[in-house]
């Protein structure tokens, strides 16, 4: 699809902005609609677009499989880890109040990290699934 001159150029122009937009959605989830999940999906969509246009191999070079797989696990670990930190600091599980001296600040901090965890896992999984599906050769049709 790289050969599609028009597509290639527009995609090149758009992708960085899509990524920034994804991060914007991520970090402004507190104030406007959006949050970790949506941001994860959008970021993954940007990479998918890249993969669609420049071919799966280049997408794989950009974000290697190993990284993606680590992301898949890492997000859940971050999320669950935030819970454990709350536990360690003397609160209940997933208690954000204890994360900072001021309870509200603690909540904010907790939500922030939790959303990051969600985003990492989601984008990791979406990308991984995309790689998995797009990367397979179709078996010869037996019909």
């Amino acid at each position, binding site marked *: 699809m790289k050969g599609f*001159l*028009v597509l*290639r*150029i*527009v*995609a*090149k*122009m758009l*992708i*960085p*902005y899509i*990524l*920034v*937009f994804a*991060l*914007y959605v991520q*970090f*402004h989830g507190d*104030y406007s609609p959006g949050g970790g999940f949506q941001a994860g999906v959008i970021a993954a969509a940007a990479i998918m677009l*890249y993969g669609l246009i*420049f071919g799966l191999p*280049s997408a794989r070079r*950009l974000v290697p499989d190993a990284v993606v797989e680590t992301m898949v696990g890492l997000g859940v670990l971050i999320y669950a880890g935030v819970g454990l930190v709350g536990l360690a600091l003397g609160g209940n599980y997933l208690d954000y109040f204890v994360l900072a001296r001021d309870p509200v600040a603690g909540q904010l901090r907790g939500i922030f990290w939790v959303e990051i965890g969600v985003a990492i896992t989601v984008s990791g999984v979406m990308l991984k699934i995309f790689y998995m599906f797009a990367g397979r050769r179709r078996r010869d049709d037996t019909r």
Partner: protein
Amino acid sequence: MLRIASLLVALFAFWVLMSGMFSPFLLGLGVASVVAVTWLARHMEIADREGHPAHLRLVAVVSYWLWLFKEIWLSGLKVARIILDPRLPVSPTLVRFAPSQKTAVGIATHANSITLTPGTITVQANHQEFLVHALTRDGAAGVVESEMNRRVREFEGSDLEEND
């Protein structure tokens, strides 16, 4: 290097415009995001002349867009009339012609502009040849050696070598 810097600036401007919030925390996040994305963009090799055409003159771009909008408006009216005409007077046509642009950005702009104008659609576009599908024969005639062609040629700038 300059290109990276300008991409950084552009992305950050985008962030600030989207966000509209200026707490240090969010701005900091913005800077971090932008840097990360730029780094990624470099790895994608999309921050080049094609992907981030910072060399174009802003004035030229804006004036081109204004002109293009006028074109869209005119041909839009034409197509609308055709649609609403009970006889549906279409005479679909395919034309081929060679564009006079040299840079990829120019080609893409030209192709996109043709497609944007209702009544004409670029089916294939490369340096040698455009294949355009037009709703009417008049429209087809208007595409070949058009003013659009000339204007895009002007605004893409000829002084830079194409390094595609």
